């Protein structure tokens, strides 16, 4: 993968690939360590492993590594370590977080109030679930996932105005949308939904 060369100091991965591309022979870890004196041996081992995974370096013999053609090409165009492409492995299991449980409750019930969500989604380990859930519902409201209903559920406190009730408008999947600074990222659709201007609907 070719990218623009960066300006900051190159890391061990970049430096190892530079050495191997320049020499074009296989070098042992000891020889690399001697070449890159200020890099700890442990980092050299880990970096070579990563380069082998990326197919920029191959093991020519036992304990001896050399740059591949792809590695030499990458070095010429300005190699940068980091992710080399999209992750295509198995998806992570659904996390058991408060917001994930809140989202599941919303999708099951459709119409809900904040106390409903607290009763169903909390497991007693949360520090301030009320404010967390309120904030999340507010964010989903601004992104158009949730709409506040005009009628309220009866409250319990003295002279309470009752609890606001909400309706879930978009059931996009089982993964909870993630609140971001300017909107909500929906992992079910892969879309970033921006907040509506002027607050929740």
């Amino acid at each position: 993968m070719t990218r623009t060369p960066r300006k900051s100091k190159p890391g061990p991965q970049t430096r190892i690939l530079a050495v191997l591309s320049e020499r074009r022979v296989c070098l042992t870890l000891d020889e690399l360590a001697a070449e890159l004196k200020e890099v700890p041996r442990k980092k050299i081992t880990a970096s070579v492993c990563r380069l082998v995974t990326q197919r920029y370096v191959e093991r020519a013999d036992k304990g001896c590594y050399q740059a591949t053609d792809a590695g030499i090409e990458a070095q010429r165009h300005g190699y940068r370590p980091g992710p080399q492409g999209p992750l295509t492995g198995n998806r992570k299991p659904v996390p058991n977080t408060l917001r994930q449980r809140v989202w599941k409750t919303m999708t099951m019930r459709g119409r809900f109030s904040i106390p409903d969500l607290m009763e169903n989604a909390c497991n007693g380990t949360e520090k301030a679930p009320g404010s967390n859930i309120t904030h999340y519902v507010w964010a989903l409201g601004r992104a158009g996932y949730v709409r506040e209903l005009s009628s309220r559920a009866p409250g319990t406190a003295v002279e309470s105005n009752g609890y606001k009730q909400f309706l879930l408008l978009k059931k996009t999947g089982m993964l909870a949308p993630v609140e971001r600074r300017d909107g909500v990222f929906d992992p079910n659709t892969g879309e970033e939904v921006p907040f509506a201007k002027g607050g929740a609907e």
Partner: protein
Amino acid sequence: MRHKFLTEVSNVSRFLAGTQRVRESGAPEACWQLCQGEAGFGKTSTLEWHATQGGHVLLRAKSSWTLTAMMRELVLAVGHQPIGKNNELFHTVLSALAGSSRTVIVDEVEHAMRDIRLIETLRDISDMTLTPIIVAGHAGTSAKLKRYHQIFSRLSDVTDFGPATIGDVRVVCDRLAELKGGKDLRFKDDLVEQIYIRTRGRMRDIKKAVANVEAIARRMGVEEIGLAEVPVAALTSDGLPSELKRRA
């Protein structure tokens, strides 16, 4: 009033003991659990709580359910897009549930019993992936299920949801009622007994009565409250208009 789900009440603790029995049942395919009881005893709220906390799959059977409708809902609930025919949907469900330790919960199962193919499909899924199945319905669902011996023989537990006991009322009062600043409100025994009698053990009504008593206690500024301080009307759940309740 605190908003908490109480696992200590008798119906929920019986349900949880039942799920444990299903997990430990000798025959691996006998992994069905039935929850039955009249409306208002907390079946649906217990199942929703169980599904949320455990990440299980919960479906509510509809009167309009066909096999395709059920399979599409099931595929969506396990996190996939319902694409293809029933056969493909079935294999999507199998691959999602196999080895996932999730339970499939079907509420209002009477609707699914009109078409035996729906129940048989659930049996196929359960047999092939050893996924526990919890079905819930009104009182008398077990009698209806007896018609299908192949299903009934797979039930490892039948949980009956009944009226709350006086102990349950005490738990609700102690755990949910709170005063300003989060302090506990103490209920005297005579008041707990009267709530139990007046609400006929219906959890929804018990919570309403506790909320009313809590409001009275807050207004009076007391930390302990008994029957003498509470008008009986605050405990009623007989559907009378509020003017009549005040006179009662």
